[in-house]
């Protein structure tokens, strides 16, 4: 196929998929849209076939994937790839898998689509053969995620042995009558761990940084924007449709999930600051934000869920834009290490602007959509009696935006210790700059994604819509009624969210981020005594954290089993 035709066809297909998902979203606002494949409608409450059950949350995730895929394919328009048609076909299969995963209302069908987009992702991560980078990253990614998929399937088998059903709604009905016993607990454990691997919750995240560093930009946009989020989506979907009945009244579950969320957020945030490789930096920013979003779900209520969904959509758009920006840097400067790039980005002011805006988006500053999401999350945290979570949100936002601002300052302004000499030493490499200016088809997708993230933030009535969508998402009986035999759902009214305090927290996060970035770039301006004492005190912990993250495949799988044993033991303790 001629190159131009393949490009156009791929972008057009992704765009059409996006529009279809958007139409689906519009059509399911009034009530869950259920589609039985083969026309096999359930009989006497028993599902014979497979259904797609589309509610606003699922449709939104599918739309997000479509938008990101369209942007990524547009970005790749001008970048030469040898195996182009195969690559585009794989990208579209990747997208198809994600969309199916978001819409499906059947547990095994979700597994099939989960494997579908995973397999496409393994191949897309590993194929960049010109890069002498560590291919083992792709293998670590593939093996760890395959183990996750095996655990998911084992969980499905356990549930099937108990309930004799695979439809989410039917499973939920079948399990609801009794409190969680050992089989339900272990099935929950297996499914959650499997999805945690995809979501990159600590300690199941060790595959992520290598996969990001290795993935071509086109793929990385989807990784950064939606793949981890899909793991979280699955956690929430399966919890609310299947397990919310048997785990009702299990007080400790929230605590366990919050411990995981806080660990994930902090480990991700600190590791993000410690990175110099830009794609790895974004990888750990993702981990950190996964922790933040998981905290929203962990509140186990509609408010936290609504905030989490709104946040992860806006955050996904921002991170997609950031990954494209990193892709532009890589394409033009043939490097993504901020130390080696010091001062070399001066002729790409557009990209610097994108990175700064992206950093503000990560910090959750208005008018970015991340701000609204976080405002809802903060409200939910206060309502749930967990006000300290606000501190965590501020810390995460400050750490991740600080890392990005520091890198931007170093790459585009040449700031930072060692920046000057390094830039001078790198002088001859200016010849490695292949294209002096970023092309519009490269910059435009990133601008569009950021604009969308802002549009979400300015959309009137969006918080109320998110709360309503979350209320439906977390209403197990209503979901079951919609899927297995329809009763009308009654939307509840939601008071408007107060935005003054969240705005203050957002500004504080951004200022903290800026201050941290400045401190990293100009350590000479800090008072020497406290600075050195702090550095000495932190050194062992930092070294340990780095050492833990220097993993190979065996370590990654070992941590997975450790995490599973720990999570399972805690679960067993709190449900007894």
């Amino acid at each position, binding site marked *: 196929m001629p190159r131009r035709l393949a490009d156009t066809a791929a972008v057009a297909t992704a765009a059409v998929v996006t529009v279809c998902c958007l139409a689906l979203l519009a059509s399911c606002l009034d009530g869950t849209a259920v589609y039985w*494949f083969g026309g096999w409608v359930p009989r006497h409450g*028993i599902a*014979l076939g497979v259904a797609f059950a589309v509610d606003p949350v699922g449709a939104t995730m599918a739309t997000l994937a479509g938008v990101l895929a369209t942007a990524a394919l547009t970005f790749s328009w001008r970048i030469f790839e040898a195996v182009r048609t195969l690559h585009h076909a794989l990208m579209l*299969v990747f997208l198809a*898998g994600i969309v199916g995963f978001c819409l499906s209302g059947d547990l095994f069908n979700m597994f099939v689509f989960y494997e579908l987009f995973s397999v496409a992702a393994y191949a897309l991560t590993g*194929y960049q053969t010109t890069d002498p980078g560590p291919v083992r990253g792709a293998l670590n990614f593939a093996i760890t995620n395959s183990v996750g998929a095996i655990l998911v399937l084992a969980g499905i088998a356990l549930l099937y042995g108990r309930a004799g059903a695979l439809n989410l709604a039917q499973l939920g009905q079948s399990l609801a009558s009794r409190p969680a016993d050992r089989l339900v607990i272990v099935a929950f454990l297996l499914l959650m761990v499997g999805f945690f691997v995809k979501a990159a919750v600590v300690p199941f995240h060790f595959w992520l940084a290598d996969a990001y560093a290795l993935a071509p930009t086109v793929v990385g946009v989807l990784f950064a924007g939606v793949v981890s989020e899909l793991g979280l989506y699955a956690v929430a979907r399966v919890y609310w449709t299947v397990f919310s009945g048997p785990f009702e009244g299990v007080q400790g579950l929230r605590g366990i999930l919050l411990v995981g969320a806080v660990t994930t957020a902090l480990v991700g945030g600190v590791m993000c600051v410690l990175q110099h490789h830009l794609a790895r930096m974004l990888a750990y920013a993702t981990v950190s934000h996964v922790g933040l979003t998981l905290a929203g779900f962990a509140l186990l209520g509609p408010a936290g869920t609504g905030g989490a969904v709104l946040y992860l959509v806006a955050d996904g758009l921002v991170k997609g834009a950031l990954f494209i920006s990193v892709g532009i840097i890589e394409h033009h400067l043939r490097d993504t290490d901020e130390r080696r790039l010091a001062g070399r980005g001066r002729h790409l002011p557009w990209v610097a602007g994108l990175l700064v805006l992206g950093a503000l988006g990560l910090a959750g500053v208005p008018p970015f959509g991340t701000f609204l999401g976080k405002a809802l999350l903060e409200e939910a945290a206060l309502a749930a009696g967990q006000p300290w979570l606000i501190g965590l949100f501020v810390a995460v936002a400050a750490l991740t935006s600080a890392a990005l601002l520091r890198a931007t300052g170093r790459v585009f302004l040449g700031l930072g210790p060692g920046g000057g000499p390094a830039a001078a030493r790198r002088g001859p490499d200016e010849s490695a700059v292949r294209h002096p200016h970023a092309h519009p088809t490269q910059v435009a997708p990133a601008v569009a994604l950021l604009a969308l993230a802002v549009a979400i933030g300015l959309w009137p009535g969006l918080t109320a819509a998110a709360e309503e969508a979350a209320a439906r998402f977390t209403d197990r009986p209503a979901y079951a009624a919609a899927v297995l035999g329809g009763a009308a759902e009654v939307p509840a009214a939601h008071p408007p969210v107060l935005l003054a305090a969240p705005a203050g927290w957002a500004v504080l996060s951004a200022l903290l981020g800026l201050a941290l970035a400045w401190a990293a770039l100009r350590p000479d301006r800090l008072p020497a005594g406290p600075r050195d004492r702090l550095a000495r005190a932190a050194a062992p912990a930092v070294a340990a954290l780095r050492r833990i993250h220097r993993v190979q495949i*065996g370590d990654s799988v070992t941590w997975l089993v450790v995490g*599973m*044993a720990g999570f399972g033991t805690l679960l067993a303790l709190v449900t007894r």
Partner: protein
Amino acid sequence: MTPAVRRRVFLVAAAAAGALLLWGLTGLPDYGVYNGPYGDVLNRVAVAERSATNVVAAVTFDYRGVDTMGEEYILFAAVLGVAILLRAQRDEHEEPPDEDAADRDAPATSNAVRIVGLTLVGPVVLFGLYLVAHGHLTPGGGFQGGVVLATAALLVYLSGEYVTLRRVSPELVTDVAESVGAASYVAIGLLGVAAGTAFLANVLPLGQPGQLLSAGTILPINAAVGLEVAGGFVLLLSEFLEQTLVIRRPGEVT
């Protein structure tokens, strides 16, 4: 972690995880007891509703046909992935093997092996087609038949007829077979939409259970899957074969 530390950490964690697993597994019904309802309902209604005497086929290709469609696309993605990984290397580092080179490098095969191999090809192809065609009646179907068909192609290779294999199934043909197989699954599904029912709904006459021409769309879907699987597995195997053959140049270790 060093290997010794990792092994120790793993063993401790796996002991705990294993205990949890066993604890949960003992919550299952005893082995040999099936409480349903899903499978029992299907065993009762499937033959009457779908005219397929093999209920597993009815489930695979109709009741849960969309799972199988996803599965076919997993195969499709994996084959694409293997091709992308191995072809990219080939394009960069090696000339594609021309037929002479393949001829020269193919492992020498004794005439006895060659004759036995080639005699087997016919029956194996027949068996594969039989499996594909009878999937709705007896155990077997597009997937099993497709793999058997791919094995036939492999027999040709094992008999030392690599050149013949390349002539019979050049990359393009298997590429097309695989893609057409995958696409026709979706096309058959869309027939249901066109007929005004649902995606993957049956649109063909059901016929009498037990007849070869029965069970409506299950038979054509089986054929599509057979085509895709055969194409896909030949592609997978030949991509790996290419790899070994291209590298084995004269003067290198053989």
